[in-house]
């Protein structure tokens, strides 16, 4: 069983949703990023989404754009992203790591070589934002052969007829984008998300993570009641931005504190989880 499947099975048995923080690899620098990554499981992360920095993150709002830029300015490369994952894996063999980003840095390495490196480093899943099912065959086959999940995005614009196409080849979990918009810019409407999840669940047994519009512990709890995972990104990388001048320990402590609050809020919903 893959780490992702094992983690969701374990959480299902506990009757609670997963907390999935997103951080950008190498933000604000390599060492701090490593320290953040190491601190996340202890702060309540069930799955980690690790952003691969890109110069032109079209689907991201200002917070994630800035984090990508900080990482690149500090010398982030794909090799260093893999190094972060490899290092993390030596210390934690349970927490799934999903790389999230854009296709061009993957394309530059070659899809097959990239998948090989990712599998060797201990990556469990991939979310390539600008690689819809129409274009991702190039990544899907090598990923499936390497046991890496391709996590597909479902959005409010993904109508029923299209859903089958998105689900065909999807594994690990589904990522439901709770808003029409870029990351960290709007808040979700609970009723709409609930209705969308009900619709998607009719078509798949995959766990569903919800992200793009979740900032606060209260919002995370709302999502935890109706989904299998809540993803928080912009709010976390904003903390990195705010504490940037305060030193490594202060950044790690502040990120951990926010993650702890988000995770606790999600855990408080444990047992109260009602299937939509």
């Amino acid at each position, binding site marked *: 069983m893959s780490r992702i499947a094992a983690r969701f099975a374990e959480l299902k048995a506990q009757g609670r949703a997963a907390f999935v923080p997103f951080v950008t690899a190498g933000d604000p620098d390599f060492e701090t990023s490593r320290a953040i990554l190491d601190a996340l499981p202890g702060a309540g992360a069930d799955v980690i989404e690790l952003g691969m920095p890109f110069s032109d993150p079209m689907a991201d709002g200002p917070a994630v754009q800035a984090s990508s830029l900080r990482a690149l300015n500090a010398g982030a490369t794909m090799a260093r992203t893999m190094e972060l994952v490899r290092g993390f894996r030596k210390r934690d063999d349970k927490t799934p790591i999903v790389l999230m980003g854009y296709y*061009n840095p*993957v394309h530059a390495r070659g899809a097959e070589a990239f998948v090989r490196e990712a599998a060797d480093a201990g990556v469990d899943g991939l979310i390539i934002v600008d690689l819809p099912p129409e274009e991702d065959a190039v990544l899907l086959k090598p990923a499936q052969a390497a046991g890496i999940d391709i996590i597909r995005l479902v959005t409010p614009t993904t109508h029923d007829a299209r859903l089958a196409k998105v689900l065909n080849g999807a594994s690990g979990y589904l990522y439901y984008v709770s808003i029409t918009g870029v990351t960290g810019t709007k808040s979700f409407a609970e009723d709409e998300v609930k209705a969308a999840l009900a619709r998607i669940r009719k078509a798949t047994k995959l766990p569903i993570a919800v992200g793009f519009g979740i900032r606060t512990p209260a919002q995370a709890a709302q999502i935890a009641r109706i989904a299998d995972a809540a993803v928080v990104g912009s709010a976390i990388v904003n903390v990195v931005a705010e504490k940037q001048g305060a030193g490594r320990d202060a950044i790690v402590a502040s990120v951990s504190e926010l993650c702890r609050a988000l995770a606790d809020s999600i855990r408080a919903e444990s047992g109260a989880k009602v299937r939509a």
Partner: protein
Amino acid sequence: MNTLPNTLRSGPDATGHFGAYGGRFVAETLMPLLLELEKAYEAAKRDPAFQKELGELLTHYAGRESPLYFAPRLTEHFGGAKIYLKREDLNHTGAHKINNCLGQILLARRMGKTRIIAETGAGSHGVATATVAARFGLPCVVYMGEVDTERQRPNVFRMNLLGATVRPVTSGARTLKDAMNEALRDWVANVEDTFYIIGSAAGPHPYPGMVRDFQLVIGNETKAQMLEQEGKLPDLVVACVGGGSNAIGMFHPFVDDPDVQIHGVEAAGEGVDTPRHAATISKGSPGVLHGSRSYLLQDAEGQVQEAHSISAGLDYPGVGPEHSWLKDIGRVKYFSATDQEALDAFQLLSKLEGIIPALESAHALAHVARVAPTMRKDQSIAICLSGRGDKDVFSVAEALGAKL
């Protein structure tokens, strides 16, 4: 590729690819919309009522057809092939951009969209979009890199006069690439009511083929006008290439004519061997940006590099996917001209023919200055003069050290 199809004009294929280029590399939120757009465009293309309405607007609103002008003094100056200028600068709004904007806004109306967005570099596409939005009474937001809003102040004012909102983009290098990122972000957030009028033959399928189709009028007219004036096709067709919309519109009707050579001219900025240029095809490598796979200025990590050109309209690190394909199969040859060469050509045409060209178009002229003297006097060259240079007088004055 060993075998080529009988025609080079059949692309893109059903999945939006020109050979290995093109495609739809966008977030899932936009995919259903692109599929819908593709369907709507295919239907419109075959609808005589749509074509008739577009044709009437091109004639009575944009002022087509544009002249093909034989430039006697320029021809004499170069001392070789006869020089013909396809006068897209004489269109309403002063450039070829209006051809495409009229097509897309009619499509937007057909699709029931009520809000228009666009990106712009030099401002020509922004002005053309603001113009058609005003003509049809639709609100319009134009994203423009902050650097470009400074280089092209008159165009910002024009867009405002036309009722459009210009949003200066402060991310990245604050030029065209970043304006396009921002427009895509707006689109993702407003998919229901918004139509994104892309100005280049770039972006995700169906844009590259659709923008090309709306620009074909340039090459189609040129072909007929050459036959009328010269009694034969030109020996060489030349256009500048940024994203490549005027070029693909000019080139496409000639790609199946084996005796016609085709040259695209990119911006070499301060030189293709310096880091400051925009010669995507000459110096870049295949990559994925803004929804399609094409040549791209990027580093070994796949991070997109900043382009540089004195001409804001060519200051783009990508290029339309069909150009990448035409380069690979060898049908079109791509060259470049530096900022200085473009400035020289800008002044030359102004003085010799009384035509102030856009800095973008001046790059095509700069290339012709090199090749025309090597050709025979019974040969001819058709150049796409994609726009007029009024918008550039401030930046040219600055480059020449003149105070305005």
